[in-house]
């Protein structure tokens, strides 16, 4: 098994909620040493996706009260998850549940990093807002660097 996985979660029909998938898709060709998966955030699928990995990076839209396009990096178990993150997006709860489920079954990865991108618009429809679009290249670069550092 490839021991690094990048997981984009979200819904591409809910505006900026598609940012996790957009970033993950861009990373597919950039980091051949990693598995790249597009998921919807359902906890058991997340646990299956990251079980046994050395590093798992999750990309998701997250509302933390900062301006749209802001990128948050959180290492689970090391950095506190800001209270404002919880339950603002329907799959935030999924991620928290997945971490708890993985912990209960000893299936969490060695290192679990969540990149959360502040959305501008989560209403029904295709496409990312300008603010999130502008933040994408920086996010993709940062994730690619992090994966390369581990795989080097």
């Amino acid at each position, binding site marked *: 098994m490839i021991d690094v996985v990048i997981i984009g979660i979200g*819904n591409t029909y809910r505006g900026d909620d598609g940012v996790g998938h957009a970033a993950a898709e861009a990373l597919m060709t950039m980091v051949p040493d990693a598995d790249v998966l*597009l*998921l919807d955030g359902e906890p*058991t*699928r997340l646990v*299956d996706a990251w079980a046994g990995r050395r590093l798992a990076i999750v990309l998701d839209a997250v509302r933390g009260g900062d301006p749209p396009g802001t990128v948050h990096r959180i290492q689970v178990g090391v950095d506190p998850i800001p209270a404002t993150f919880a339950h603002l997006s329907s799959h935030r709860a999924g991620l928290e*549940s997945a971490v*708890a*489920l993985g912990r209960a*079954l000893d299936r969490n990865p060695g290192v679990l990093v969540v990149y959360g991108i502040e959305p501008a618009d989560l209403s029904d429809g295709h496409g990312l807002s300008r603010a999130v679009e502008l933040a994408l290249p920086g996010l993709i670069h940062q994730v690619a660097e992090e994966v390369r550092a581990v795989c080097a």
Partner: protein
Amino acid sequence: MTHKAKPSRTLTTEELARVEGEGAMRVEIHEGTVGRVELNIYEPPRFFEGFLRGRRYSEPPDITARICGICPVAYQMSACRAIEDALGLEVNGQLRELRRLLYCAEWIESHILHIHFLHLPDFFGLDSAIDLAGINRPAVERALALKKIGNELLELIGGRAIHPINVQVGGFYKVPTRRELLAFRPKLEHARDMAAEVVELVGGLDFPELEVDHEMVALRHPTEYAILDGRIISDGGLDITDQEYPEHFVEEHVEHSTALHSRIRARGTYLVGPLARFRLNFDRLTTVAADAAGAVGLTADCSNPFRSIVVRAVETLDVIEVGLAIVDAYDEPDRPYLEATIGGGTGHGATEAPRGLLYHRYKLSDDGVITDAVITPPTSQNQAAIEDDLTRYVQANIGLDDEELRKGAEVTIRNHDPCISCATHFLDLTVVRT
């Protein structure tokens, strides 16, 4: 736990956990009698209906798959069948068998998810499957293993597990080889053993008393436990084709919800989903599944929604057995899909999503562009029935304090596995006592 009820009260749940998506519920109790009960869900299918207009006839399978992460195949299959109906295309033989197998994979995944991660914790007084892992880790491990097999089968036929991409009008883009399917057989055999254990586990639970008398509606096939196609029948005498659906079912807008309420014309509330299927198709179960149901005392006349968890377990065992038979008889079709001749018309398609009947209708222009789309998911069909269950449950347990009542009301909703991401996001529960 009983105490004298306050003369009037309102129950509110800020967030109903362990249902798919978002929504809200409000229960009003006046002088010890349940008054208004409202389940309020938002409905992305309405957005998708608008979104589909102006698209090509070939697009709904991929687009509607995005309505739900748990049951994308159901959306794909109803969409394909409706469009094929409009184009006069009939998919039979091994292509139909592959569709059934793909659908079986989704049922395994969806049912196992609901049984263990959404519903089972309720029966142990626990908040989540994470807590369940603390008292019965093997059950949670088994659930993950079963779900994974469903997932892998979805990938094998559907191209990927989330929102499969290999489905198209007329069939598939690529079909698996006989060797690929046979290689999967040992996993299905293992899944069958595990599913039998799940039936035993949930069959032995204690169930709250609640009997409902909704009209039960499901597909009925001449020889199969219907999933992919069949006549739409009910225990109230309904027996119609997909094309006749709009004549018999009406959708009404209700003030408290963005979802439409479905009713059988001139009759009213009805129920789709496991209990309905089981009642109407008990005689179509595989022997293995029927025997397992019998062993835990589940009979076709079951009308206790809390027992739907047992029906789901039996159905899981059934689809695995069906899947094994499809794999054994599989013969790679000559072509992965049937070519459609583009033309105008209206088509209807109903299939059995894990949560119940899912109906699609598309109107196509002569050049194959969608001019109108209707998607009626099981959850919106069940909305009135769920409200009715809640009324009965709350009335029967009116002496409980608000917290106990709220918990019971949530479980009553979860009995029906409302796919609120098809129909919505988080659920808020409000109980008003006056």
